[in-house]
């Protein structure tokens, strides 16, 4: 072993796991023959003792308690903020879900209402058409079917005009008028064209808005 090799591995050979027994023996032998390397080894031994003493000085050193205090404080603040933020997010989601649910239910109800209204309208129109048909065929010949008569009786012989709902006739007034039969056509009722010019007397059921709701033919 030469001086360079000794400096590289010989000074700390006992601690270096990669240095084998043979190299360790060679380093010791070199130190016993080379006065410069022996002096270097001695200096290093002294320095190591001093380094150990320096290490001992700080061996029990610890971070002051205020560091732990500050970290704990920061930890609390951080996690409390996180909890609050998480709760806010959950609340926001819950509110949003409730709003969507409410919207869906309202929309469903509105749709159901619309459908019900449409079916009522269709029913009343069918009823009006049926009643008008009855009057035409029933008055001179008295050959109406049983259902139409029952409907007429319920309506006090009035025939609802097309587009009028039964509920709308509750507060209506009865006005007796004389008109040509063709005017019934203007009210949306079927008219026999052969007798269109004939004068007839009718009772009109006039609603709050002043519009006729139903009509009753007088004999």
């Amino acid at each position, binding site marked *: 072993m030469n001086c360079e090799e000794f*400096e*590289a*591995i010989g*000074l*700390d050979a006992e*601690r*270096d*796991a*990669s240095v084998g027994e043979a190299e360790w023996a060679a380093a010791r032998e070199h130190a016993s023959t080379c006065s410069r390397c022996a002096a*270097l080894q001695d*200096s*290093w031994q002294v*320095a*190591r003792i*001093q*380094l*150990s*003493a*320096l*290490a001992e*000085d*700080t*061996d029990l*050193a*610890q*971070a*002051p308690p205020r*560091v*732990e205090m*500050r*970290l*704990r404080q*920061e*930890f*609390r603040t*951080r*996690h409390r903020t*996180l*909890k609050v933020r998480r709760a806010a997010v959950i609340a926001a989601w819950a509110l949003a879900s409730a709003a969507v649910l409410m919207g869906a239910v309202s929309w469903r109800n509105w749709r159901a209402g619309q459908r019900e209204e449409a079916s009522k309208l269709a029913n009343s129109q069918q009823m009006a058409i049926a009643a008008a048909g009855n009057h035409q065929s029933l008055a001179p010949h008295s050959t109406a079917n049983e259902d139409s008569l029952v409907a007429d009786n319920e309506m006090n012989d009035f025939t609802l005009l097309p587009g009028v709902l039964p509920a709308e006739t509750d507060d209506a007034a009865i006005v007796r008028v004389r008109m040509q039969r063709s005017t019934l056509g203007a009210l949306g009722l079927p008219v026999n064209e052969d007798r269109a010019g004939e004068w007839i007397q009718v009772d009109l059921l006039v609603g709050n808005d002043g519009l006729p709701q139903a009509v009753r033919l007088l004999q």
Partner: protein
Amino acid sequence: MGIAEQERDGVLLRRAAKGDEDAFALLYRRHQAALYRFALRMTGSAWAAEEIVQDVFMTLMRDPSKYDAERGTVGAFLYGVGRNRVMKHLERLPREVSLEEKNEDGSGAGIVLQDVFTPGMWAEQRERREQVRAAVLELPAEFREAVVLCELEEMSYEEAAQVAGCPIGTIRSRLHRGRALLLAKLEMLRDVPRRASAAR
């Protein structure tokens, strides 16, 4: 540190991440001293060491997911973060020193060591220790790190290489050069008082 303790560290970290303050405090108490000592020996400043320890644990608190159990122990991770902070501190140091007060003759006041000595306390032993401390602190950061890890922390070359994140050969060569520089500095410091007393 045994495997059981390493696992315990992992459990503590997971609990701390979920907001368990006691688990975090326990983790801190287990690792703070070693980190503080390393930082103190590297920087020579108790204030800087305190800041570094706080910074390391703040990093762990802010983002615990940065720790990957497959890459090593919690202790090694903390050491790694601490080492980075120390290196950053040492990089900043020259600028900080230049901002310090200057003496009347214009020379720098230098880094003030933490311990305060009264003239009566200047025993030779103490003086030698201060010389060694000053010599260590004057070493370039990389060599100082090798000397601190292997000589003061008494780590094996393998452990030191793991902490420094370099091969064992690099640690060996840094230690060799650091040791040579340290011996030269100590020799120089030893000669100064001798020359001064000879001049008297």
